[in-house]
């Protein structure tokens, strides 16, 4: 008994120490955002008079809400679109596999291997001609395509674990594949779909290459907002921290709230 409670204490200390170390950079950034610029570069200290000055300045300088709205629109919009494409595709491959299914899956994943830097100019020219430059919608399309392979793959593996008997019971009753998909599979697979969607939202929210290159103001998300604080003249660390916290806070909160969901759905078919 003595031994086990010793173990527990040891475990608690270890668990918390590691967690705090991993989280420390974010904590330190949050702390810095409430300091003055001079305090931000002087000897680290936990004792200071917190100020909201940096936040006020960031709000004054840039239209945070516009950037944040674009981020929300782009990441949730692209996720919904990707799911709309992916759910039927994954359903088809999981329940009606053909000889070509494994090959198709591999090929889909391989489209993600294109380095964005290499194809920037072609995409930029296409966007110019289609009038999609600096539109949130254009970015949404890119993100949909960017995340589609992973979304399909995650759903595919999740669907494969759905007990086929339930679907077959429905088939005996003469449901069509469309009905089967919408009335049987989707309700059953909600946890997997939700965590797939979450992952896609996170990846879109944090993408910084396309957003910086294809949008400038009207369609620009929070990654572009950060770019305007990254290295201005003079002391900038406190303001940068404030802007950074504002850029990551929404997705961090969403991620934390859905952590349980994320864990239960991230199986990739690897859990039996």
């Amino acid at each position, binding site marked *: 008994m003595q031994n086990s409670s010793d173990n527990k204490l040891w475990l608690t200390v270890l668990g918390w120490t590691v967690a705090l170390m991993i989280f420390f950079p974010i904590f330190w950034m949050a702390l810095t955002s409430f300091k003055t*610029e*001079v305090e931000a*570069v*002087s000897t680290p200290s936990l004792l200071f008079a917190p100020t909201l000055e940096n936040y006020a300045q960031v709000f*004054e*300088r*840039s239209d945070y809400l516009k950037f944040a709205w674009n981020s929300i629109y782009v990441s949730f919009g692209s996720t919904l*679109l990707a799911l*709309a494409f992916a759910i*039927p595709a994954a359903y088809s491959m999981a329940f009606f596999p053909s000889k070509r299914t494994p090959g198709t899956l591999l090929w889909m994943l391989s489209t993600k291997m294109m380095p964005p830097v290499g194809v920037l*100019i072609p995409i*930029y*020219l296409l966007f*110019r001609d*289609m*009038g*999609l*430059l*600096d*539109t*949130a*919608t*254009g970015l949404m*399309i890119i993100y949909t395509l960017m995340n589609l392979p992973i979304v399909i793959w995650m759903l595919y593996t999740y669907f494969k674990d759905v007990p086929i008997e339930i679907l077959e019971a429905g088939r005996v009753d003469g449901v069509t594949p*469309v009905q089967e998909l*919408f009335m049987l599979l989707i309700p059953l697979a909600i946890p997997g779909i939700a965590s797939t969607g979450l992952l896609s939202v996170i990846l879109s929210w944090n993408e910084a290459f396309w957003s*910086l*290159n294809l949008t*400038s*103001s*009207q369609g*620009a998300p929070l990654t*572009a907002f950060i*770019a*305007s*604080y*990254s*290295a*201005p*003249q*003079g*002391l*900038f660390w406190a303001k940068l921290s404030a802007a950074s916290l504002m850029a990551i806070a929404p997705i961090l909160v969403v991620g934390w709230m859905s952590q349980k969901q994320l864990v239960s759905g991230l199986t990739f078919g690897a859990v039996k």
Partner: protein
Amino acid sequence: MKLQSLIVSAAATLLSTAAVTQAATTVTIGTVNNGDMIVMQKLSARFEAENPDIDLNWVVLEENVLRQRLTTDIATGSGQFDVVTIGTYEVPIWGGKDWLVPLEGLPGDYDLDDVLQSIRDGLSHEGKLYALPFYAESSMTFYNSSLLEKAGLSMPDQPTWDQVKVMASKIHDPGNGVYGICLRGKPGWGENMALVSTMVNTFGGRWFDENWKPELDSPEWQQAVGLYIELQQKYGPPGASSNGFNENQALFSSGKCGIWIDATSAAGGLYNRSESQVADNVGFAQAPVAVTSHGNHWLWSWALAIPKTSDAKAAAQKFMTWATSKSYIEMVGASEGWASVPPGTRKSTYANPKYKAAAPFAPAVLEAIQTADPTKPSVQPVPYTGVQYVGIPEFQSIGTQVGQTIAGALAGQMTVKQALKSVQSSVSRTMRRAGYPKK
């Protein structure tokens, strides 16, 4: 059915958003996130109040990101920007490619003659002016006078690099967080190479000979780069190879650097008590010389220009003349303090008693700007213009490659000799690929 309607509605959203057009009087301004530009953005509310028919739309980005965005936009004729913030490097090149609107018919009260001649020349191509200067800078030597005094030193008005080295060695006290000298080390043509080029110039070297053959392994380069690396390694702060202008400004204004050789535009901030802990101890002198004074200090200006593809040229020009006018400078003086007005552009600023009183560095800055000559950067003849850069499109890439390798030498990965040998061959390659010697 649901699937199809989803796709249809997705396609519909797509089309409708793509078809949205911008109002004709929106002026989209692409600019860098420097302190002076941020002030401009703040004060522009007044411009909008005076011109209710013009809406300003700001795109503020970090310098390198901005440059890449603007170049892509203009070179592909995408027309997203109506006013662009570019420097003396880009203006003549872009003007020559017919990408910018030549500026004519400026209002009489703009008083173009009041703008310093050397700056106007830098922003022109074949006699046509393509941009209006927002601020301009040269380079000079800043020092922390209390640290120098403590070491029993005094800075001459025109120091030599040898003197700088001796002083740096005496001030250097890393145990107490004080470093002898802070120089740009962050790789980039506009970062470490700006300083290194001026050092090469003053040692009598040049980037290219008259036939565009690179001279990067010449003895002048060896001396200049050798000294640069010695100074940084022996008397510089840790992390020198990732310090650029901003990082050094932060170091200097928190009292950690004895000597800092950088842009004159830093002066305003160093004298500003809310940004600088050393406001009472800043000293300044001209940029150091070695063998010759040719090209020992640079010339740069951030300027506003209108791309040919803009759909709001008249409104854009109206804004530009406002933001670079005498009255704008007055406005900044009144709201931000006279030490913080955009420097280096107008004679009238330097004649203004309020500015002279607030900015003790003003005469030295004016002298540096007026004596910088981009057409004669080296004692030897050169086929290019530009003190701290070479005015050809390839230089962005060349300068950055060389800067990267020198940063590698600074970090101790290779010797100066090896570094220069390798950049000599890589620059030769790039130049050959670009088709030099041309004509």
